[in-house]
């Protein structure tokens, strides 16, 4: 009959291919429908090849990213600090809690809104960078000491590690922002890079190394400062967005 033209194997192949193609088309359709482009978190890549052929993030985007970073950093530090306080310092003895200064106290930071607003952008940026720089090594030490001690669980030590990495990333980001601003002409050239000699060591006046708790305490404060300063900077430079 009419079906003799098609041998069984040929028919089988034909049907299989048809089915596969249909299935592939269906999958594609589903993927297209389900993947809402608007729901995706668009991450604009940092162009290494320059502005050509690449989406260059705007200053606003950079600022947003940086601010998100700092917020994350601060929340981590806050969590660690409260954990420390909960498990290792049951007594809420406020007297004599901190006997030593933070090592970053030598950095002059504005401690009020007016003071912060009085600072120029360049200075503010520099302060931020200084702070972030000052905490690179201590955070590494903190992580090391926390990892070695049996008191901390792995979760805390991971947080410390993440905190250190995030600080590093944040610094890089802020540097990029500064660069961008400098390119855009918002920043003057008065910002100078940090000299390696100014790296501070978290050594207190008495020469003793600070305890972990003290480090956490200090870092929590400094991360708050950084976040605040960044917000001020952003709203000063790009006032229309979330300000």
């Amino acid at each position: 009959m009419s079906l003799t033209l098609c041998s069984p194997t040929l028919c089988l192949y034909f049907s299989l291919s048809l089915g596969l193609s249909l299935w592939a088309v269906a999958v594609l359709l589903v993927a297209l429908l389900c993947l809402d482009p608007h729901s995706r978190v668009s991450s604009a890549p940092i162009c290494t090849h320059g502005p050509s052929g690449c989406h260059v993030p705007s200053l606003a985007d950079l600022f947003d990213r940086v601010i998100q970073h700092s917020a994350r950093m601060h929340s981590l530090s806050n969590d660690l600090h409260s954990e420390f306080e909960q498990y290792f310092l049951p007594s809420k003895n406020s007297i004599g809690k901190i006997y030593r200064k933070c090592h970053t106290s030598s950095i002059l930071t504005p401690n009020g809104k007016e003071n912060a607003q009085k600072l120029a952008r360049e200075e503010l940026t520099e302060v931020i960078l200084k702070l972030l720089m000052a905490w690179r090594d201590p955070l590494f030490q903190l992580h090391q000491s926390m990892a070695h001690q049996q008191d901390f669980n792995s979760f805390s030590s991971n947080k410390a590690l993440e905190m250190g990495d995030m600080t590093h990333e944040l610094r890089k980001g802020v540097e990029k922002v500064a660069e961008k601003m400098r390119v855009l002409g918002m920043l003057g050239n008065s910002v100078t890079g940090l000299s390696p000699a100014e790296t501070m060591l978290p050594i207190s006046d008495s020469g003793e190394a600070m305890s972990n708790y003290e480090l956490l305490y200090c870092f929590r404060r400094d991360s708050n400062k950084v976040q605040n300063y960044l917000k001020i900077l952003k709203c000063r430079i790009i006032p229309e967005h979330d300000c």
Partner: protein
Amino acid sequence: MRNSGAVLILIFIVKLISQAAGVSAPGKPKLTSCRSPEKETFTCWWEPGEDGGLPTTYALYYHLENSETVYECPDYKTAGNNSCFFNKNDTSLWVNYNITVVATNALGKNISEPVEVDVAYIVQPNTPENVTAVVVDEDQGPFVRVSWEKPRTADTRSGWITLLYQLRVKQQKDKEWEEYNAGMQKYYNVFSLHPDTEFMVQVRCKPDHGFWSEWTQTTYIKMPDYIPRQRSLWIIITIFSVFIVLILTWTLNVKRNSVKLCLLPPVPGPKIKGFDKQLLKSGKTEEVFNSLVIQGFPPTIDYDDLLVEYLEVYDNEEQELVLDGKDLSEDCIKSKSPSDCDSGRGSCDSRTLLLEKCMVGRKGSGSDQHQYSQHGETSWASTESSECQGLEPGSPESSDGRVKTWPVVFSSPQPHHHYQAETVKPVYHSVPEILNHSSPHIMPTNYHHLHHQDIPQQEGRHGKPACRHSQSYNHFNLDGLNTPAPGVSPSRSLEYVEVQRVNPENMLLLRPLSDPNREPEGSDYAGEDYSKVKEVTSNNILLLRRDTSHHCVDDYSQASQCTTQQPPHPCKPVIYQSNSGMPQEGMRVMGNGYVDSTVLMPSY
């Protein structure tokens, strides 16, 4: 030494006295909370202890971390009683404040526990302001848009503080609030609220690190009455159903014939014979049902009639046994019975036999009726019943359409009356035809009606035998139906008769063998079915003779030596006349001289 000792004793005495008087140094105050609304100023509140009965003053002292300089609270008034307000100048962020409160009265003072405060972490903003809720009507349905403003004191413009908002909604009757996080935006759309109800809305805010503010005052909003419409779904459903309806209609149209056949099957008309549909339409039910009534239907068979009971044979001197050759079914005589019937058996192939006889007998027969005449007739009766009447009701032989009657045995001992059977008993076949064809006086069925009118003239007559043998003849008046004969059932089952006796009138009384009422007198005939044939005369007359026991005269000439018990039993000549003249063939002569009388039954 003495002075110090004296002072001590004095103080001790004073204390004792004061305690006895109920006054004492103040209790220990307690700092309850410190809050900053905008991260620029802050306020601390304390709780005073017992005042000890004496007026007590409170003072707040603080010192910053890593500094020993103690400052006193700059403002005790602004924030109210037992509070200390730190203005912008005195507020430093990211610096720990060590705050204590000192209560002092005449008898002493008391210092509260110190509290460390970092202003950056005690931020609790004021409530949001200008909360407004508006109903917005859209295609999807109305919803509520709640909008507010930031608290006045919070400076979010410069980025110094970042506020996150939260609102909550509930109906008046609900217990639980429904909370929504608005983020940093200052408006929010609330969907899916119940129509025609009033809702309460509240908003609060929080800095990114800090405490939640208080809830605002309740804002009331009333949802309008609306019917939720989901237009797109209804459109789809409508289109789909229309599509399906179209397809169904088209399918029905294509297959309308089969649908019609299925839904409205053709009603079969009535198929009753004789039923007139027109009568039904006319609406006269009487006529309709009358037409259904068949007279005499269902045929009731009078089984009594079927039984051959008695055959009366009359011996008439004047008349001789005349056999009308025409009437007699000489054909019957000579007809060959295909079966090997004994004379004793009643119904051997009687049907076919009768059929043949019918055919034959009819040829010569004009009328079928056996007329019966009264007394003086002798008649032979044939026990054979014929059913030819029923078989060929519409035989063309009957010129006048008379029903053929058959020579059947008289069924009852009553000689005459029974002949006139009143009942018309058609045993077979359609009565209307019988009715139609019958002349008013017909239906002689079970009886021979012997007509002796023409007998003496017709055939050859024999002289009167000395022995009066009863002659029975069958005169079948087939020509005319002069005398009305009552209807007699035409068919009889085949049965043998025996002569019961001969009455003084030379009547041979026959009776069927199966008659239960048979008189014992004829017991000698009980087992006897047969009549012995004496001889056959030349003119085809069978002379039967009685049993030897009865010692019958078997000859004309012989005087009967009949027993007195019985009527003279002359020899009973069974005379059959066959036209063809070969009686011997027609009858079967048994070996011992018996004749199978069944063969000789004339069939008409």
